C-alpha cells in the first residue's frame, strides 16, 4: 500500500499553494489519488501559508494531520509544524533561509542560491523544491517536467531548469523516502470543489455567473474568470452583493440560467433579493461558501455554522432548495441538480459549501453525463399569458420578455395570476398556497433523486450522521475505527429528506452527530423534521477541518469502543 503525506510551507507570496497543487498533480499523473489542502491567513504577503499533500494508491478523501516530510522555504514553517512529523520524518529546507539541526533528519538544500544561479525570482524557489520533493519520492523527472510545462506554458523554461537542479541535488545528497510506483487506472481530474461545482452549473445550462469577491467563494471566480470564454459563459463582478443578487434576478427573468457566489456575510446582504426570488418565483442558484463567522470572522478558515441561517434566510414563507455536497464529485452533480430544480420549480436554490470543500483539491472521477439541462415547463398556446397561473403543481409555465404576445410581469409585491399587485385576503392566501404547493412537487421530484448517501456497513447499528465537507474526514476515520459502522450523509437540507433520514435513524441503536459548529445545527434540523433527538455529538468550530485520526478516536469514545 503506497501512502505519501507531506507539508510544504512558507510565507504568503512564496507560491506555496501553487507548488502544492502541482505536487498533487504530479502524484495524480502517476495514477495515485491525491488530496491537497491549503491553510493561509487573511493577508497577501508575509504571514504563514502551508499546504498538506497526501497521496495513495486508492481513493482517499482527506489529508492527515501527520506528515513524513516538511518542505520549508522559511524558518517559521519548521518551528510551527515540527510536531506534526512522524518518528522517521524529515525536514527539507532552504539553507539560504532557514536552519535545522534535528531531532528529525535535516535535508538542507540551497534553493536561494539555485534561483540566483539561473537568474530567477524568489518565488521560483518553489520549482526547485518541487524537484527535490519529486526526487525524494522517486518520481520520474519526465513526469515533473510535463506537469510544470503544462502549468507554466511559455514561461516554464527557468522553472524547469530549477526543477532539474532541485531534483539532481536531492538525488545526489538525500536518501529517498520511498519510490512511488505508478498506478494504472483511468485518469481522474485533481479538482477543487469550486472548480467542479462551477462545471456542474455550466453543464446544467448556467450562462451567467455573478459575484462579488469574498473568501472562500472567490475560488469560483478565480476559475470562471479566465475560463469563461472556453465554457461559453459570462462572469460579472458588480458593485456589491445586493447588486449581485438583484442582477441575477433580472437575468433569470430574461431567461438566462444564472448563479451567484458568496460567503455567509455576503449572503446576509443578498437576503432581501433571496426573498424576492421566492416571491417573484425567479430561479437563481446561490452558492454560499461557509467560513468562520459571526461577522467577518476568520475569513480564510472553514466552518459549518451557517446551515440554520441559510435554511431560515429571507422573510416570508416560500419553497427553497438547499443542497450540501460533500466532495468535488457531489459538488459537480448536485450543483447541476440545484440549477435544474431551481428552474423546474422556479424557486431559489442554495448550494451550501465551505472553504474546505471549495479550496481543497482531490483526485476524483467526474462523469459529465450525470448532469444535463432538464427543461422547465414553457408557456404555449394562445390564451393571454399569466406569469403566475394557478396550477395543481404550483408551477406556472414560463415565458420570457421578448416572447411575442406574452406580457411577462414579475413583482416583489403579492400579486394575482397576471402579476398585478394583490391585497385582498382571498387573493393573498391563494397565491401563498400556490407557491407552497411547489414544495410538494419538489419533494415528489426529490424522492427520485439521491438526497442522502449511506457509507460503510449498511447493516451496522452504530450510525454517524453528518453533512457537507466533513464527509471526507468521516470516511477516513471510519477506515481507522475497524468496527461495523454506518454513515448517513445528508445531502439535501431543504426540502428535508425526512423519508430517508427517519428510516435510517429508527434502525440505529446508537447515533453520533459530527459537525463543524458548536450547536449541532443539523441535529436540531433533524429533530425539527423527524422528531428524533441525537444525543451524542462531536462538534468543533475552530476553522480547521476534522483530522481523521483524532476523529476516529472520538468516534470510538462516543460509542464506548475504547
Amino acid at each position, binding site marked *: 500500500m503506497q501512502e505519501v503525506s507531506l507539508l510544504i510551507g512558507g510565507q504568503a507570496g512564496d507560491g506555496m499553494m501553487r507548488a502544492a497543487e502541482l505536487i498533487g498533480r504530479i502524484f495524480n499523473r502517476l495514477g495515485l489519488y491525491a488530496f491537497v489542502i491549503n491553510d493561509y491567513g487573511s493577508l497577501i504577503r508575509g504571514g504563514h501559508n502551508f499546504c498538506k499533500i497526501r497521496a495513495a494508491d486508492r481513493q482517499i478523501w482527506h489529508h492527515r494531520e501527520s506528515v513524513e516530510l516538511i518542505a520549508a522555504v522559511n524558518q517559521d514553517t519548521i518551528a510551527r509544524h515540527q510536531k506534526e512529523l512522524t518518528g522517521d520524518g524529515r525536514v527539507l529546507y532552504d539553507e539560504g533561509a532557514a536552519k535545522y539541526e534535528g531531532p528529525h533528519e535535516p535535508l538542507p538544500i540551497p534553493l536561494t542560491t539555485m534561483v540566483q544561479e539561473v537568474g530567477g525570482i524568489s518565488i521560483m524557489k518553489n520549482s526547485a523544491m518541487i524537484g527535490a520533493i519529486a526526487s525524494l519520492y522517486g518520481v520520474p523527472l519526465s513526469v515533473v517536467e510535463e506537469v510544470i510545462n503544462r502549468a507554466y506554458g511559455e514561461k516554464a523554461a527557468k522553472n524547469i531548469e530549477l526543477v532539474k537542479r532541485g531534483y539532481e541535488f536531492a538525488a545526489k545528497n538525500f536518501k529517498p523516502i520511498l519510490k512511488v510506483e505508478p498506478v494504472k487506472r483511468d485518469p481522474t481530474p485533481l479538482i477543487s470543489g469550486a472548480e467542479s461545482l462551477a462545471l456542474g452549473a455550466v453543464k446544467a445550462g448556467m450562462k451567467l455567473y455573478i459575484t462579488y469577491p469574498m473568501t472562500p467563494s472567490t475560488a469560483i471566480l478565480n476559475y470562471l474568470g479566465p475560463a469563461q470564454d472556453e465554457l*461559453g459563459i459570462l462572469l460579472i463582478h458588480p458593485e456589491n452583493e445586493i*447588486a449581485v443578487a438583484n442582477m441575477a434576478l433580472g437575468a433569470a*427573468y430574461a431567461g438566462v440560467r444564472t448563479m451567484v457566489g458568496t460567503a455567509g456575510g455576503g449572503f446576509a446582504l443578498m437576503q432581501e*433579493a433571496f426573498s424576492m426570488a421566492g416571491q417573484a418565483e425567479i430561479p437563481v442558484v446561490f452558492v454560499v461558501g461557509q467560513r468562520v463567522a459571526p461577522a467577518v470572522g476568520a475569513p480564510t478558515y472553514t466552518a459549518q455554522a451557517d446551515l440554520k441561517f441559510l435554511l431560515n434566510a429571507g422573510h416570508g414563507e416560500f419553497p427553497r432548495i438547499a443542497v450540501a455536497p460533500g466532495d468535488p464529485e457531489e459538488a459537480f452533480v448536485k450543483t447541476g441538480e440545484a440549477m435544474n430544480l431551481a428552474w423546474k420549480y422556479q424557486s431559489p436554490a442554495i448550494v451550501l459549501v465551505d472553504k474546505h470543500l471549495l479550496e481543497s483539491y482531490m483526485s476524483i472521477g467526474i462523469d459529465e453525463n450525470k448532469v444535463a439541462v432538464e427543461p422547465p415547463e414553457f408557456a404555449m398556446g394562445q390564451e393571454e399569458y399569466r406569469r403566475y397561473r394557478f396550477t395543481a403543481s404550483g408551477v406556472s409555465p414560463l415565458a420570457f*420578455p*421578448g416572447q411575442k*404576445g406574452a406580457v411577462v410581469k414579475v413583482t416583489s409585491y403579492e400579486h394575482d395570476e397576471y402579476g*398585478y399587485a394583490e391585497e385582498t385576503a382571498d387573493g393573498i392566501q391563494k397565491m401563498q398556497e400556490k407557491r407552497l404547493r411547489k414544495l410538494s412537487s419538489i419533494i415528489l421530484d426529490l424522492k427520485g433523486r439521491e438526497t442522502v448517501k449511506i457509507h460503510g456497513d449498511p447493516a451496522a447499528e452504530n450510525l454517524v450522521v453528518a453533512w457537507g465537507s466533513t464527509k471526507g474526514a468521516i470516511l477516513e476515520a471510519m477506515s481507522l475505527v475497524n468496527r461495523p459502522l454506518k454513515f448517513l450523509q445528508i445531502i439535501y437540507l431543504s426540502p428535508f429528506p425526512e423519508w430517508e433520514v427517519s428510516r435510517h435513524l429508527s434502525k440505529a441503536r446508537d447515533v453520533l452527530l459530527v459537525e463543524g459548529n458548536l450547536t449541532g445545527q443539523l441535529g436540531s434540523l433533524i429533530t425539527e423534521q423527524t422528531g428524533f433527538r441525537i444525543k451524542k455529538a462531536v462538534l468543533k468550530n475552530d476553522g480547521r477541518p476534522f483530522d481523521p485520526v483524532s476523529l476516529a478516536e472520538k468516534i470510538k469514545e462516543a460509542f464506548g469502543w475504547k
Partner: protein
Amino acid sequence: MEMRDFDSPAKNTWCPGCNNFGILAAVKQVLAELVNSGEARPEEIVILSGVGCHGKISDYIRVNSFYCLHGRTVPPAMGIKVANQRLKIIAFSGDGDAYAEGISHVVHAARRNLNMTLVVHDNEVFALTTSQVTPTTKRGFRTKSAPKGSFEAPLNPLHLMLSCGATFVARGFSGDPRHLRSILMEAVRHRGFSFIDVIQECVTFNPIKEKYLPKIYDLNKEGHDVTNFSAAWERASEVERIPIGIFYRVERETYEKQLLGERILAEEKPIPSIKKALQEFI
C-alpha cells in the same frame, strides 16, 4: 399602437391629482411611438420600478415589467440587459429609491454607461410612507422624520450623474407633461445610460408646483450646448431659475457592447461537453 393599448386592468390608487398620472401618460405615449416607429416591438420593452408611489407604474402599464425591491431598480435592469441586449429598458425610481436606498447602483450604472433609461420621480419626499425626508428634501422642510425641519444639505442629482459619467442627463417637470414626453423620447433613443430627474409635485405632502412654476425654463431654448460638460454643470447649479431639458448628451461605448459584442446570452445554448475543461485538471 395607441396609448390605450398599454392600459392595464389594475386599479389606479394614486391620489386624485397626483402628478404621476402625467408621467404615466407621457410614458405610454413614448411606448406607442417606439412601437409605431419600428424602434421596438412591444414584447421587447421592459419597464422596472422601485418601491414608493412611483413604483405602481409597473402595474399601470400593460407591458413586460419587473417590480423591484426598494432601491433596486438598476441591478435587475442590468441583469436583463446583459441577458438580452435587444430589450429596451426603462426604469422608474423615486428620490428615496434612487438617491437613498439604492444610490450605489445608480452611480455605477452611470459610470458603466449601461444602455437604459432611468426616470426618477423626484418629489423631494417619501410619500407612500406618509411624509419623511429624502436626500433631495429642501432645508427647512418639515416631515415626520424631521419635525423641526430638515437640516441636511440636499443632493443635486444632476451633478451626481454628471460626475458619475452618465452620457445623457436631463431634468423634467411633471407640471409640463409635453416637455417631459419629448425628453423621455430622446432619453429612450439615447444609446447609453440616460437619466431624467423629474421635479414632481406631491399633491398631498409637498405641493410645490405653484412655487416652482414661475422659475422653470427650458434650457434647450436658450442656446445651451449639450456636449459641453462645464456648461451642463453650471446650468445644473442654478437655483434662482430652474432649468429643465437636456443638460448633457454625449456618445460613449455602452457597457453591454463592450461586455457582449453582439451576443444574446438568452439565446445561447450551453456548451455540449465539458470534456476539454475536465482534461485540464488531469
